[in-house]
């Protein structure tokens, strides 16, 4: 494949990700889902951006892991935060379904330093 073709595919993929979540869902790739839902605007796996890293979130909740925790964090993703990490609340994400948020939460809680 030529570099031009590769670039074209990457660009087209970028547009698909940005424009249409449903196309990403079929890939069953939670990282891609996080990107499609723009989570990477504020979060990364290991580094703090506008919000805490996924590794930091997992560490904060390493003691208490339960279905209830997954549910609470999932609902926070959708409805927005209340300053658990300081005085910058997380934005509401109406474009994320609760099922998607649960999938994201489980994936985030599995992050460890170096993975």
């Amino acid at each position: 494949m030529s570099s031009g073709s590769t670039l074209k595919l990457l660009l087209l993929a970028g547009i698909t990700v940005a424009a249409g979540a449903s196309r990403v869902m079929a890939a069953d790739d939670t990282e891609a889902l996080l990107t499609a839902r723009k989570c990477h605007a504020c979060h990364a796996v290991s580094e703090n951006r506008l919000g805490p890293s996924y590794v930091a979130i997992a560490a904060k909740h390493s003691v208490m892991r339960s279905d209830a925790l997954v549910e609470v964090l999932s609902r926070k993703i959708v409805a927005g935060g209340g300053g658990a990490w300081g005085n910058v609340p997380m934005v509401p994400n109406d474009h994320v379904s609760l099922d998607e948020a649960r999938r994201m939460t489980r994936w985030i809680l599995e992050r460890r330093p170096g993975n």
Partner: protein
Amino acid sequence: MRINRYLLSSLPATAAALVAALAAAQNGFAEVMVDGAALDLGGTPLAATQISLQPGIAGPSTITIFTGDDGHYLLPGTIAGRAAADINIRAVKLGYEHVDTLRSITDTGDGNQRLTLTAVMRRSANQAGVAPASAWLKDLSLADQAQVVMACVGCHQLPAPEVRRYANLIADLPGDAAANRAAAWPMIVNYMNFLSAEEFSRGNPHNPSPEPDRVYSGGQAEVNGALLARTLTGRMDYVAGYDYGAPLAVNEHTVIREFEVARPNAIREAVMMGTPPRLWAADVSSNRIVSIDVATGVTTDFEVPTELAMGPHTLVPGENALWVAAFFNGYIARLDIPTGKWQTWQLHTNSGGEAGVHDLTFGPEHQLLADYRGRIWYSDIVNNAVGFFDPASGEMGTYPIPEIEGRPGSGASVYGIVMTSDRKHIWFSQLGIASFGSFNTETLKFEQREVLDNLKAGPRRLAITEDDILYVPLYGAGQLIAYDTKARRTIAVHDLPDRASAPYAVTWDPLRKVVWIPTSNANAIYRFDPATKDFSVLPLPREGAFLRMLQVHPQTGLLVTSYANIVETVHGPRMALIIDPGDQDVLAGTMPTRHTAINGN
């Protein structure tokens, strides 16, 4: 002037009637005539109340009409294929809350039904959910209004419902409220910059990732964050005291038809063209033009033929053709409407770089107007230039716009461009540095330059009359400049009815001899009559009615526009609209009058 507009109605109406008859036969529903009134709790009729018919009519997703002076309304035509019991309305009037709907169904004696829906409206000081986003900015200084509009409203309304929800989250935090706002809002500006950068990266393989800290905040995240912290204070679920600022330009004959395009999409601009006329909408998030059958609402995609990912951005009607400019990689496409065939051009600067085409030269009919040699001119938003290409020969060239001292061209954002009647002068605007000026296509020299004192004035997309009067909307300042291009002098600067309305564009209406001003932040279109200097307001029936361009369909006089929120995570509507202002002396009925329920649902 009276125009025969049955050109538009005949074929779609016939098709709709056939579908309606079939649907009625299959479902056993009578045809339903809908009428009613809007009353306050004391039984007083309320004029100029928006009545939106819900939901699922084939063709437009929603039809909105208005009550007349007597408080009554009548839906034009009938509804087929839907049980009367399943038809409902939403009523909206500034200062009121729609609290109940009284229903009455009677047989008309011919096998059909009359459904009377009376909206009961309660006075309410809280205008949240009814007033536009600009209502929340009404108490700001003009300087703050302009800064907020220029920094944020280029992509979405401010404050959009999502913004107000976030303001509530901040307000609910414990601790020092001012410190919380000062911490949170700059972060959100950075967040929005990132989203904007993604949107703006589409279609440009050579610049796939604009600097996230510069898009729309212009590298001023802290400044704009501080501005939001200062202006969006407290919980934002109550706003009062807003009025439209001018009389409403609606009556019992006004009809607004909204055509929703299935998501995902980022509908940008829409025009109506062809025989019978169809809507054509640019989807900047994909590589397609969406064509909408106005009778059925059925859409057909026209893929733009290019190896580049692009995102069609600007639509300019031409002679039986739709001209499309990409976002912003110098790619121009022309769709021949009768045949559906494309022609394309890749435009370059004189030095071989990519042109960044924003607008092509409009004439007074809001159609493409080439110069006296057949060259099409464009505004180059990337290179702060004007340029041309000759579609016949392929010749092209660009002319960098001279710098203004103290206002760097790198932030100029060349936007609108129009052609004078002699086809020898073009006028352009520079959104980012508050300037507009002219260029002579014969001498190839820049001529007049007007520099506005207010750097945040925001001259955006232009219109010109048959007499070469230029109209300039000031997006940030909320004003309208009338300018005599022959005498090269400003005739007047008019304050719009709402200074925070963010007038995105102006369109000259050669049929009515008025100026239409679509706004991005006021859920409204303004009408300006140069003869009387009066403004009036055409309110739109939807929160987040973020408008861009507006076309006056030359054969019918109908207004065509679109809701075009850019950022995907701001969930504004994505629709194309056809509006009959209801001026019956100008316009006769043109749209199908028999509305068919979709799949009988």
